[in-house]
């Protein structure tokens, strides 16, 4: 087994890059991390939430319990038997009664199947928020010609500014401040905030499809549903 030793990371901050590349680099890294997580998410879904059935996949189902109070018109909850002597607690027992007897409320538990996929918190497998702060020192400013046309179709040539810079060590600010005040104007503070997007529409559609499948269908509509 090869021996792995910690290598010292010495980033080269001296090389100047254009400002677009410097700002986009952390966001590209986050995006790539999200791709890795999306792949892991897909693999997880196929591996643990579906089982292979021939050429296709079918969802793994779990059993859920639905409890609901219902009014039972055919039974009575209790029937009291009168006490024979004063001070004796009357005995109460549940019995079957004739349909004309008053109603009772009973808790009915129904079991139904639900795809496992619908209760797994998949959203947690993405980078939800990124905050990147760094100082950038502008090393050079260039301009390049940019051609375009205005509303009347005349050609316009103007020059666009291009900034080049490098990541600056914020700790060196105080030293430089005392030596040369003009250096402060070369620095810009970059603050990048990025937030996550919801699950892809395809995955949401699959989850929605399966969650809707638990809705009860009245028997008279059942045949229509299959005919369609």
């Amino acid at each position: 087994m090869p021996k792995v030793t910690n290598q010292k990371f010495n980033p080269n901050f001296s090389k100047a890059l254009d400002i677009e590349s410097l700002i986009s680099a952390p966001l590209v890294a986050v995006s790539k991390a999200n791709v890795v997580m999306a792949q892991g998410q897909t693999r997880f879904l196929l591996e643990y939430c579906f089982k292979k059935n021939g050429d296709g996949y079918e969802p793994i189902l779990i059993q859920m319990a639905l409890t609901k109070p219902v009014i039972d018109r055919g039974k009575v909850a209790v029937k009291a038997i009168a006490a024979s002597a004063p001070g004796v607690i009357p005995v109460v027992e549940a019995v079957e009664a004739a349909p004309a007897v008053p109603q009772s409320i009973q808790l009915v538990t129904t079991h139904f199947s639900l795809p496992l996929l619908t209760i797994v918190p998949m959203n947690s497998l993405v980078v939800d928020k990124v905050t990147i702060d760094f100082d950038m020192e502008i090393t050079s400013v260039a301009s390049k010609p940019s051609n375009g046309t205005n509303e009347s179709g005349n050609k316009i040539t103007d020059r666009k500014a291009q900034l080049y810079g490098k990541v600056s060590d914020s700790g060196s600010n105080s030293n430089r401040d005392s030596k040369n005040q003009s250096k402060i104007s070369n620095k810009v503070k970059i603050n990048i905030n990025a937030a996550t997007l919801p699950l892809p529409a395809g995955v949401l559609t699959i989850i929605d499809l399966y969650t809707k499948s638990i809705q009860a269908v009245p028997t008279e509509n059942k045949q229509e549903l299959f005919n369609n």
Partner: protein
Amino acid sequence: MITQSQNIPCPVCNTGIPFDIKQLMMGVHFACPNCAASVGLAPESKELVEETIEKLEAVKGRISA
């Protein structure tokens, strides 16, 4: 306390029932905010859900490592 914004549609009235997966695994039943129905995990599926959530945590751990 429900910490996750996960919902399951009520099989009776189709209103979203907010639930937390950890509490669901512990046997908590979640009541529909619209009707009197409550939904919980059946005991026979508890093991399967627990295993899957453990595997999900392991995948998350591998990715963040």
